[in-house]
């Protein structure tokens, strides 16, 4: 078993566990944060498979922009509930 196989097994199992948590968690904000962690793990998978361009793009977009869009949606809703 090579080092690549070992790393890919670890990354694959973590991907599945975090995806299950993201889909099944009760609070919406936890689900969004698990989605962010999932895209960071996807960056590791892209680097493992020698795709640096895709890894940079996913790191910028998946961790920052998509998460911020989800959080802004949840924030606007919570403010309206307070009023």
């Amino acid at each position, binding site marked *: 078993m090579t080092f690549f196989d070992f790393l890919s097994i670890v990354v694959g199992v973590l991907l599945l566990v975090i995806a299950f948590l993201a889909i*099944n968690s009760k609070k919406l904000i936890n689900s969004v944060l698990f989605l962010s962690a999932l895209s960071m793990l996807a960056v590791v998978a892209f680097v493992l498979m020698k795709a*640096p*361009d895709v*890894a*940079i*793009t996913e790191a*910028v*977009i998946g961790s*920052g*922009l998509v998460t*911020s*869009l989800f959080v*802004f*949606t949840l*924030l*606007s809703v919570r*403010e309206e509930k307070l009023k």
Partner: protein
Amino acid sequence: MRKLFGLAITFALGLVIILALNNTVNFPAFGEVNLSERISGAYLSEDNVEEVGSANLVTSIVIGFRTFDTLGEVTVLFISSLGVAFILGRKKQKRMNLNFKPNFMLRVGSNILLAIILVTSFYIILHGHLSPGGGFPGGAMIASSVLLLYLADDRFRSNIKGFKLLEGFAGSLFVIIGLLGLVFATAFFANYLPTGTIGNFLSAGIIPIIYVLIGLKVGSEIAGIIDNFLTEEERA
């Protein structure tokens, strides 16, 4: 109970997909691909690489061989940002109150970080034909610097009209450069500038110019989406 049943069914579906992929002749196993049988083998041949002149082969496919495809994808992004503006845009707008007063450290620190992020994003855009990166991640980094300004300053409003103007300018210049290919060469988006030697900063013909335009277009579109999400209707 219903959840367990659904999990079992989807697990079975995954097994069926894996078995179906393993038994076909046309789908080689993971890591045992012969590139010369694929269409990518032609992209990796010496004549084609010389013709485009980009050191990053992914860039030479995105902007060199498949530019028309990229034009369509940029159009899809434009339409989705238009849809967001159509759904969320109101007449009387005010900025969403994030209920946060920035202190001195956050204000000064975010200004210095903004400069570093902008310099890095332009570096990534300009070196798209030499190193990993290019217009798409660089444009997303420009948009994330706008996001940083929104988060660090509670009064900041971006100039949304300026972004719209920049986006239209970059998009139309992108198409005009493509149309000039019909004049100076034979085809739409033909590479009519000298390509230079592979690996130099000034090489690859029209690829760096198009990538800068794509970066500006993507950045201004995503910044417009962020601005639409952070505004809400003004209550009287």
